């Protein structure tokens, strides 16, 4: 066994492969950081260059782009308040709030360290327990998916800030938004009013860019004019790096989030975004130190989300390499890469081409370490952007928002939809309705409804089918406790505003 890994290391560290990993990671970071180019698009765009490469070089390049992309999303999220990747939305909520408090550099370094930690954790988890993760993931049927999403939604009171009433309003609004479009079970059009734009539903990146990023600019425009955004005085690496005590303080979150990330990443119906939100929600639910800070710059939320979304890479790769099932859009691209090089990803691949499988395992470790250096450099460069004049900076953010909204489906209508959502977000914030629960519900709502209905179809209409398995029963019980407990503990919260 050790010999196989030694050999894999030797192959991966060959100069062309090393170069491919650095280039892949750089490209991925860029694609991840730029709104409008998702990680999977980033991987598609370099796929055609890999035809002529040797298989190993091609895979480390693509995996590099994949890991880089998931990591890169955090940069734009913190600095500009735009989710570079959907999986970085919780990072926008907490990280950008920290940036506005002048803690951009600290937030960036914390995010990077947590990302890398999550990534490495999941790779090691995957190396140790591939069959275990795959088996566990397969036990998730519609009933389990439903229970998982309900557990995720149940943290809404933790994200509501002051008033739970407004939090719940926001959450149900999000659930409604998730139902717009073609119904995934009947094919019926819901709330589309005959438009083609809404047929595919409210794209949640479009909604999030509007609700979070553009409305933020509008709120900021109300504040007195500043010449410079000027919140960062870069003080040198050692002063900015987070202290070890930070990680010790939140050790539970640091362990739990990558586990959530790895498992949810392995579920084909879920993925990095849902992983990030679940981990973020768990952090909000159990926050001991400063629960009131969630939504207003809680470093713990940032740590949870970023370690979970990076950890989803390990889960996704596990299910891909052991069963040939792509757990996410990006790993679907990797399937194409395998085909190009004459391999069929599936259960037999491990015995046919162990060199490739172990090579990818090892490459994922090396890429995570490389990312620490590459992204670390990128962060220092990106922080310089804070020296731009405030007005120009805001204009640039808006243009990036437009690119982000347009780029998903290359659709002008999506830009208009984004504008509508920015107005909604602006008024929600103005009147103290928190935006985070709405986005949480928008992310989870569709999966919640469809898996509920699938579960009912499979159980022949009997609601008992929802709790027949141990996993779904435990998850639903957890959700029930987490909804009821805060209401008993702090009934006053319901009214406070």
């Amino acid at each position, binding site marked *: 066994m050790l010999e196989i890994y030694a050999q894999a290391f030797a192959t991966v560290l060959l100069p062309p492969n090393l170069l491919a990993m650095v280039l892949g990671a750089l490209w991925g970071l860029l694609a991840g950081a730029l709104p409008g180019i998702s990680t999977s698009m980033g991987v598609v765009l370099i796929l055609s260059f890999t035809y002529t490469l040797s298989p190993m070089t091609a895979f480390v390049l693509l995996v590099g782009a994949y890991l880089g992309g998931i990591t890169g999303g955090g940069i734009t999220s913190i600095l500009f308040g735009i989710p570079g990747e959907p999986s970085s939305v919780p990072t926008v909520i907490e990280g950008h709030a920290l940036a506005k408090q002048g803690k951009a550099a600290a937030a960036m370094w914390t995010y990077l360290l947590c990302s890398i930690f999550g990534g490495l954790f999941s790779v090691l988890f995957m190396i140790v327990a591939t069959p275990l993760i795959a088996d566990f993931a397969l036990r998730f*049927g*519609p009933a389990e998916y439903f229970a998982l999403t309900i557990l995720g939604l149940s943290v809404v009171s933790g994200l509501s800030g002051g008033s739970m009433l407004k939090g719940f309003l926001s959450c149900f609004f999000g659930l409604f938004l998730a139902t717009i479009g073609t119904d*995934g079970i009947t094919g019926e059009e819901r709330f589309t009013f005959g438009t083609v734009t809404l047929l595919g539903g409210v794209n949640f990146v479009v909604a999030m860019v509007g609700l979070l990023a553009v409305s933020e600019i509008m709120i900021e425009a109300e504040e007195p004019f500043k010449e410079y955004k000027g919140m960062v005085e870069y003080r040198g690496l050692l002063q900015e790096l987070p202290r070890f005590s930070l990680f010790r303080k939140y050790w539970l979150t640091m362990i739990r989030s990558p586990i959530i990330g790895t498992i949810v990443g392995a579920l084909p119906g879920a993925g990095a975004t849902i992983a990030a939100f679940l981990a973020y929600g768990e952090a909000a639910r159990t926050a001991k130190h400063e629960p009131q800070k969630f939504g207003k710059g809680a470093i713990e939320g940032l740590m949870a989300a970023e370690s979970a979304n990076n950890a989803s890479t390990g889960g996704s790769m596990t299910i891909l390499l052991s069963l040939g099932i792509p757990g996410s859009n990006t790993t679907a691209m990797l399937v194409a890469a395998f085909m190009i090089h004459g391999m069929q*990803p599936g*259960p037999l691949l491990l015995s046919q081409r162990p060199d490739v499988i172990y090579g990818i395992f090892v490459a994922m470790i090396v890429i995570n370490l490389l990312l620490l250096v590459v992204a670390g450099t990128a962060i220092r460069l990106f922080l310089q952007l804070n020296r731009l004049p405030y007005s120009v900076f805001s204009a640039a953010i808006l243009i990036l928002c437009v690119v982000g909204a347009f780029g998903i489906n*290359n659709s002008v209508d999506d830009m208009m939809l984004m504008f509508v959502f920015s107005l909604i977000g602006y008024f929600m914030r103005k009147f103290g309705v928190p935006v985070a629960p709405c986005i949480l519900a928008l992310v989870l709502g569709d999966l919640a409804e469809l898996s509920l209905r699938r579960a009912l179809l499979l159980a022949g209409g009997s609601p008992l089918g929802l709790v027949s398995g141990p996993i779904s029963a435990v998850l639903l019980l957890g959700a029930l406790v987490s909804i009821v407990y805060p209401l008993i503990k702090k009934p006053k919260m319901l009214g406070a505003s």
Partner: protein
Amino acid sequence: MKKKMVCLSLTLSLALLLGGGFRISTAQAADFPERAIEIVVPFGAGGGSDTAARAVAEGMKPLLKHGLVVTNMPGGGATKGMLHVSQQPADGYTVLAVTTSHLIDAVKPKTRAHILNDFDPLCRIQWDTSGVIVSGESKFKTIEELIDYGKKNPKMLKFAGTSPGGWSEIQTVAFFKTVGVQVTFVPFDSGAEIKAAILGGHIHGAVEELAETLPLINAGKLRALCVIMDKRHPALPDVPSAVERGINYTHGLMRAWAVRKGTPPERQKFLLEVIRKALENPTYVKYIKDNHLDVRPGYLGPEETRKYWEEEIAFFAEVLKDLGYVK
């Protein structure tokens, strides 16, 4: 100084504008194509349609002086991309990658653009093969056992698919209807979810395109009970074909290319010629071989494609009526 700069940039942009206008006026005389051809794929990047379109496009690129771009325009179950192409000028610069879902759309009363009335087919490029797939641990060992169970327990047989009211549901329900079984169709979001649900034992099986499931079938994790075709599949020589078991059902997923109706015939001819050459490109040939898309001949010329579309649409109309999607 600053005023000067503003003046300068204004003059500059004016000059550019005029230059652009000039380009337009000379363009009429030039040969087709005098700019890049756009292929609109009405699905997201990386899906089956996208991969197929890009594989063909790769072979077309060297034959076109101004190149071509593949644009993904997902949304509304392939409606959005189709609508977009139907609104572009009929000049041959915008080509739509058509799939079976557009034919199904043509049956529905709410359709926003009609594939037969608003488009001229260039050619059919692929004709995929599906199979009836169950878990490797399933109690159903042969297609007869499955049909038997289905006949004795109407609606208890649960099969997964992707698009409700779309190709996936139609092929599942129509296949089982041919053999006299009432099946419960459970729609999922993606092929990956379906495979995981079958492997995890959450659902009986699915009627799915074979290429993607082959690795799992070869590993024994999934089992193909029959391939929906008139002969056996070369990659699965032990699996019977539908026709050989007396099931007269051979429909498969189709991919074709079309332009807006009214595009000048000589431009259509030019595009068809380029596509035909691209289909012979060795890279493309290897691609369809690897993905078993060459099991049945895919290519059909424009007239044959139109005729094939008309037949398929008539068939879908019947199935959708049965399912209650069309009243």
